[in-house]
């Protein structure tokens, strides 16, 4: 298991660093911080609260540190999250500022949810020989991104395919100044920071990939871009929210994908981070 732990510790206020490091280094999954409440550590085997309350300054510190004091570089704050160095995602709640009908930022952030990014090399080894397009389906926190990350590495190593990744939120292969935090595999090109639909188009045109991988299909335009790529003869690996196959077929946003049988294999994740493989197209 790998984790950019020091990058996570570095964005926390100093008084919290030692406690979080001691109690959560191996097992921390989420850190929930709410103003005037003690920080809550969601660990693999339970929940623990620290014995000091979070103040507004602490929240401001975390947001400043996670964005390297550069709100312009963390443009996703308007979508309610930002990705810290190491791929740790920070969800933000509070009083939103709305301009022209869209959230442009947060006037007073009240609570944060920091999800710890961990890498488990080899976890997707059983899927290394699966060919065709693969959809990883699962509820939030079931390990979709972890499986996707390793699946990209496994397929690039075993099938020797040229894989391009659209990593919109810099979560699949988070990067920092010196390079990527996690091993990317040998045949993998990563496009970070741009939207999925636009990114898929760019990769198709410029990188001649055999496989395109992307995380969290949430919009119809993402589905259209995936469909377009699929029709161009490229295999796809993607993740989507859903508890079961039935959820996939029910959600209107995925209609385009299911009607066109875009995916050959669907990996259904469970909340306990196990999975089962469903072959859709034989």
């Amino acid at each position, binding site marked *: 298991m790998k984790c950019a732990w020091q990058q996570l510790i*570095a*964005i926390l*206020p*100093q008084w919290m660093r030692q406690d979080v490091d001691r109690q959560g280094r191996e097992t921390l999954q989420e850190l929930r911080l709410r103003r005037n409440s003690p920080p809550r550590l969601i660990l693999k085997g339970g929940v623990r609260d620290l014995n000091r309350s979070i103040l507004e*300054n602490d929240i*401001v*510190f975390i947001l*400043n*540190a996670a*964005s*390297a*004091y*550069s*709100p*312009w*570089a963390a*443009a996703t704050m308007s979508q309610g999250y930002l990705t810290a160095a190491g791929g740790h995602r920070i969800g933000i709640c509070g009083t939103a500022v709305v301009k022209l009908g869209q959230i*442009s*930022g947060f006037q007073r952030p009240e609570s944060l949810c920091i999800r710890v990014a961990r890498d488990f090399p080899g976890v997707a080894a059983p899927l290394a020989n699966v060919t065709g397009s693969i959809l990883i389906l699962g509820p939030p926190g079931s390990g979709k991104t972890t499986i996707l990350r390793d699946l990209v590495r496994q397929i690039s190593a075993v099938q020797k395919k040229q894989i391009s990744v659209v990593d919109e939120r810099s979560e699949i292969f988070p990067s920092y*100044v010196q390079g990527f935090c996690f091993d990317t595999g040998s045949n993998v090109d990563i496009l970070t920071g741009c939207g999925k639909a636009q990114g898929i188009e760019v990769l198709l045109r410029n990188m001649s990939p055999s496989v395109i991988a992307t995380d969290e299909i949430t919009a119809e335009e993402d589905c259209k871009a995936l469909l377009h790529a699929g029709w161009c003869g490229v295999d796809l690996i993607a993740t989507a929210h859903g508890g079961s196959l039935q959820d996939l077929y029910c959600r209107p946003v995925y209609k385009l994908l299911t009607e066109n049988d875009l995916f050959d294999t669907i990996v259904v994740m469970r909340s306990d981070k196990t999975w089962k493989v469903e072959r859709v197209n034989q």
Partner: protein
Amino acid sequence: MILKWIGAVLVICCCGGFGFRMAAGFRIEESALQALERVLMFMHNELQYRLTPLPVLCKMAAGQCDGALRKAFYSFSEELETQIAPDASLCMTAALSRYPHLPPATKELMRQFGSTAGQFDLQGQLSEIEHLQNLCKHNLRQMSVNRDTRLRNYQTLGLCAGAALIILFI
């Protein structure tokens, strides 16, 4: 008598030196402001084109100038990278306290830059940088009025003050 003459020479040297030092300080301030204006222009363009994060931007800015300004930007960038202070303004205060020899007007502008850095979105940050550029230009314009006369005055006044003191004492 010899002691009187040695004293007179020393008084002239001290007063003249003070005048020359004032003139040199004026030139240092002027060149620091010119450098700061160039750096701000660089930062403005870099931000607009690449949305560079503040610590990296300041490190790049340090590479665009030299002397005390370079050290101040580099130190600011280091302060931001260590992530100890809750906001950029405190990082700048810490960085400036390490380099007290920065000329006063440049130091004030740097402090203003620190107090607005990392507070706004891209447009806000660009506007703040433009505002500082204008302040730089304004200061430089003021300094350029009668520049040569002023420099000559500093130097000659120093020497004259020294001479006047000698006449008084002797």
